[in-house]
């Protein structure tokens, strides 16, 4: 897909979703859609670090919750609009990501992964002990009576998250095709060779961690207004971490479309399963799908499609059409 086509398509998808939602009268659509869009942001953000540079982050929940709690603090002290809170949440999570990366990214990837798990618990312990934001009791957030734009408040949140999703996918795609993305891929494929080839690996990894963390924080900032009651147990839920790993793995980690496919697919399945079956069982489905995909299709759905396309173009050697770009 060329650049122009992508942007046109992104804008069209955005506008269509916004317009279609004007026609929807059922509020539940916004509640469910918000969650799916939030997962698009989270899995895209995870993929910038995990898919492009190959460093696994199990601490998504921590970055996400930091964004949410930044919003809580701002809500109690100021009357800023949500988009500004999202920027603030992004800054906080980005700085934490940077510090975290600086401490551990000089070591092997496994240590980084374990450290992110550990960090999630440290941050959670601080929040649990911080009474100002509710501590372990949690905190109630009262939404403003009137949404800043037309429509209901949940519609407003949905629109914000929609814009956020389009922005983060655009960022991921831009990175993928830039020098930065090439550097990331070099780190993922062979860090030592990249370092020897003059790629500033530590700096690139820090950029990836900070950016990935910041996007997660931005996704978390509207959460207090969405749930209206925020507590550490739910905001640091392991489900966020599992989902943000599972979605890119299932969709495909090497391309920007992978996390989007994974998030839409898994997010929708979970919304349906939560309503029709039970919420514990739908988490089990996510876990099993994650295990199944890493074993059978490590390159995800995108990988499956690509290898099929390649096989087909290889089978039809004197093809009437030119071979696909991947094969060329």
């Amino acid at each position: 897909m060329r650049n122009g086509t992508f942007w046109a398509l992104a804008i069209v998808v955005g506008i269509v979703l916004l317009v279609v939602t004007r026609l929807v009268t059922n509020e539940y659509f916004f509640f469910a859609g918000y969650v799916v869009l939030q997962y698009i942001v989270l899995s895209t953000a995870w993929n910038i670090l995990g898919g492009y540079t190959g460093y696994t982050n199990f601490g998504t929940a921590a970055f996400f919750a930091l964004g949410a709690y930044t919003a809580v603090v701002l809500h109690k002290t100021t009357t800023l609009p949500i988009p500004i809170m999202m920027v603030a949440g992004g800054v906080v999570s980005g700085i934490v990501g940077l510090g975290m990366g600086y401490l551990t990214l000089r070591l092997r990837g496994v240590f980084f992964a374990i450290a992110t798990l550990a960090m999630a618990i440290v941050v959670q312990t601080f929040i649990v002990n911080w009474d100002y934001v509710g501590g372990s009791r949690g905190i109630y957030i009262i939404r403003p009576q009137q949404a800043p734009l037309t429509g209901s408040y949940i519609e407003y949140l949905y629109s914000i998250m929609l814009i956020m999703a389009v922005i983060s996918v655009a960022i991921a795609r831009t990175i993928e095709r830039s020098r930065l993305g090439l550097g990331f891929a070099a780190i993922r494929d062979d860090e030592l060779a990249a370092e020897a080839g003059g790629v500033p690996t530590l700096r690139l990894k820090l950029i990836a961690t900070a950016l990935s963390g910041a996007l997660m924080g931005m996704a978390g900032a509207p959460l207090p207004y969405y749930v209206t009651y925020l507590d550490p147990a739910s905001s640091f839920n392991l489900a966020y971490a599992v989902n943000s790993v599972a979605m890119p793995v299932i969709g495909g980690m090497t391309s920007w479309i992978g996390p989007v496919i994974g998030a839409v697919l898994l997010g929708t399945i979970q919304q349906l399963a939560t309503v029709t079956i039970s919420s514990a069982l739908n988490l089990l489905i996510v876990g099993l799908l994650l295990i199944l995909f890493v074993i059978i299709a490590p390159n995800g759905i995108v990988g499956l499609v690509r290898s099929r396309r390649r096989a087909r173009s290889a089978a039809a050697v004197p093809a009437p059409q030119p071979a696909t770009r991947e094969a060329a």
Partner: protein
Amino acid sequence: MIVSLDLLMNAIVSGLLLGGFYAAVTVGVTVSFGMLDIANIAQPAFILLGCYAAYMTNSALGLDPVLTGFIMLPVFFVIGMAVYRLYYFAFERRGEQAIQGLAFFFGLLFVAEVSLVLVFGVDYRFVEAPYIGPSLHLGLIDLPLRMLVPFAVSLAMIGVLQLYLTRSFIGRAILAVSQDSLALQLMAASPIRIKQIAFGISIATCALAGAFLIIIQPVEPSIGRDYIGRIFAICVLGGMTSFPGMVVAALLIGIVESITATFYGPSWAPAVAFGFLLLTLAVRPAGLLGRT
């Protein structure tokens, strides 16, 4: 704050006892992560399985939890070997251990937790045994038996494992795999088979560690998570491969956690191990007793 001596002494002693238990929890990861280079972050899930095995036999048959732990050892050993088989065929053979392998174990951890929730619910479960409750008194110091029994059995288990690794043929082959698996292959031994046995041992320790855990505190499916950071903190702090280093690190973290819980409140205790882990990774990744 006035620190009273007997409070401090009691905190240190209960920290030591706690540390002995942490050593039992970590020993499996020292084998799998330290020696085999398999980052098994699903270890807490197997420990929880050990807990629930002890709980079921205890509530249904009135069996002693530690005894159950011993009975379950071979079962867990076989489970461990099967998991390694799967891991080997799916990842190690294709050279894709790094990110996919981690995601695999993460998925395993999550699936185990959710399955336990579905089967047992989120209620706290506990076991009954004659040594849960009473404690010994030595002067000012209390020695609760529910901590003392896991402490003693745990150190005994680690001692036996250490002897096994340094004296027996297969044990020494496991150490050889951890040092240079190509060299072992040249000696006509199969690294895969040795690794499979070693991974089996690392999971088998969870049968006992799980029994200890449910003796020490009531258990519900999500507490396993708290142990991930603790386990890896101890493993890294102890220098990854050495049992003595690991035991020292476990006792140290036990003491620091217990002192933190006594003087600042138990809600701060989880942050201790993780703080330690981050600090160690940043400052001294080779561990306390490690070289370089």
